[in-house]
């Protein structure tokens, strides 16, 4: 597939927003259970604001993917069959829940935990909707695995937890080491599941071949004409046209930037106090996550590409 920046930004930014909300809710639950001290309302307020900013940014980016953004409201119609439609419904609901969560802490409502629980459930629902958009396309074999959902959740939570740790570093430093530690654990877990996905996809054998695509069993088939001189939507949408070298570099970049470097920086930050290292870890990881999502799209081989042998 040809990765679209609008979708890369949408999925990474909302993942960050979801992870941040889950991190804040986790902190609130832990503080109610007296596992940690209760942070001041400013932590939740700033966290909710950041989360809404990310979610809004993702939503805005998604409009750039549409040919007719003014008709986007129509996308809520087919929630019975379409995961995309479900995502379109859950995302605004989640933004509203996060806004309410921030308001609950700002005004000191006692029901903040319940609003947080609702928002956390919506965050999980949104992860499921987003991942299922890709998982449900069974012939895109690279995506058609539960690992896609696991990765979306863990990567979103890793960046969200790291953002929460940075935030705590500025407004409630007592919380920072614990959040950084959990962010490190989730980042490590994400590295494992993303690595498993890479290993799985490296062993994938495409179920469709040129033979099944045109229904001719001869092992030797050479394409002589593809039905268009100057290319078509089919040759633009489904091919990233990058070299193998570039794709490999993207893989090593995201493995380094999304996992290795943030883990190193988090480990260093546990011994040193200032949030500068964590801020750097967050920035490096987010760049890595953008590359990870680019690779996620670029790696998927669409069976329609079999009809365009000369381009692939």
């Amino acid at each position: 597939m040809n990765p679209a920046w609008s979708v890369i930004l949408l999925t990474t930014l909302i993942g960050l927003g979801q992870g941040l909300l889950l991190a804040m809710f986790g902190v609130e639950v832990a503080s109610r259970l007296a596992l940690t001290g209760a942070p001041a309302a400013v932590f939740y307020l700033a966290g909710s604001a950041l989360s809404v900013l990310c979610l809004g940014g993702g939503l805005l980016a998604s409009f750039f993917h549409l040919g007719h953004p003014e008709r986007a409201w129509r996308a809520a119609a087919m929630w019975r069959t379409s995961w995309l439609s479900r995502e379109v419904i859950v995302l605004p609901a989640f933004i509203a829940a996060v806004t309410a969560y921030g308001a609950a802490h700002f005004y000191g409502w006692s029901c903040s935990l319940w609003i947080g629980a609702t928002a956390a459930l919506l965050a999980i629902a949104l992860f499921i909707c987003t991942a299922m958009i890709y998982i449900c396309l069974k012939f895109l074999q690279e995506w058609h695995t539960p690992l896609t959902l696991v990765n979306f959740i863990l990567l979103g939570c890793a960046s969200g937890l790291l953002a929460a740790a940075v935030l705590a570093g500025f407004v409630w430093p007592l919380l920072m080491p614990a959040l950084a530690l959990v962010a490190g654990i989730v980042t490590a877990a994400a590295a494992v599941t993303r690595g498993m996905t890479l290993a799985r996809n490296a062993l994938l054998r495409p179920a469709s071949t040129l033979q099944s695509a045109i229904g001719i069993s001869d092992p030797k088939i050479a394409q002589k004409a593809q039905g268009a001189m100057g290319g078509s939507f089919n040759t633009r949408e489904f091919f990233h046209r990058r070299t193998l070298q570039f794709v490999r570099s993207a893989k090593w970049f995201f493995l380094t930037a999304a996992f290795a470097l943030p883990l190193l920086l988090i480990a260093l930050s546990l011994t040193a106090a200032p949030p500068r290292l964590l801020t750097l870890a967050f920035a490096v990881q987010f760049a890595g996550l953008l590359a990870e999502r680019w690779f996620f799209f670029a790696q998927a081989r669409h069976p329609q590409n079999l009809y365009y042998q000369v381009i692939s």
Partner: protein
Amino acid sequence: MKQLALVIDLNVCVGCHACATSCKEWNTGGAAGPLTDQNPYGKDPSGTFFNRVQTYEVGEFPATETVHFPKSCLHCEDPPCVPVCPTGASYKRAEDGIVLVDYDKCIGCKYCAWACPYGAREIDEQQQVMKKCTLCVDRIYDTALPESERKPACVIACPTSARLFGDVHDPASDVSKAIAEHGGYALMPEWGTRPANQYLPKQPKQSVAAATVARGMDPRTIDGAMKP
């Protein structure tokens, strides 16, 4: 229930692109139009087509065969492009099984194109809505046309009658008979999309003599029997 479809005979397709051009001509002016072009007379011409003809060389030289392969929406009986559409713009008609796009509802998110394993859908770069073969739904029911012309434009244009059109659910139809008699097959059966369009496989080449005899045109015979 009716399922209209095309059956394409790979034995007789000569790759002339008449189906592709007549499709474009009819549909750019019909209810599904316009089918816009970008840079049509420039270096990299591109445009929206419902139907494209590809060419493959099968086998190893010198035992090769050229296969011309017309490719359009297969109007799957279980179309993966329909349930994924978030707006309901993409739908399959209950009455005749044609898969269509409502351009007024399409938001141009391209998710249906991703969900089609055959690459049968193309976004119109100018109108920014998804387009695909309509089986000429605006002419096959047009009672203003003579009965013989109530067929898709590609079928009428084909000079070798490589394209048959009809109801594949009616066992007595020409298309059903052609599929049954000539071993019609579906593309990429592995995804369970059950394409309604089918292809008739290329038969092994017959020698000239055998073909002549088989056609009953052997000048040595009268009514199939050897001349005395």
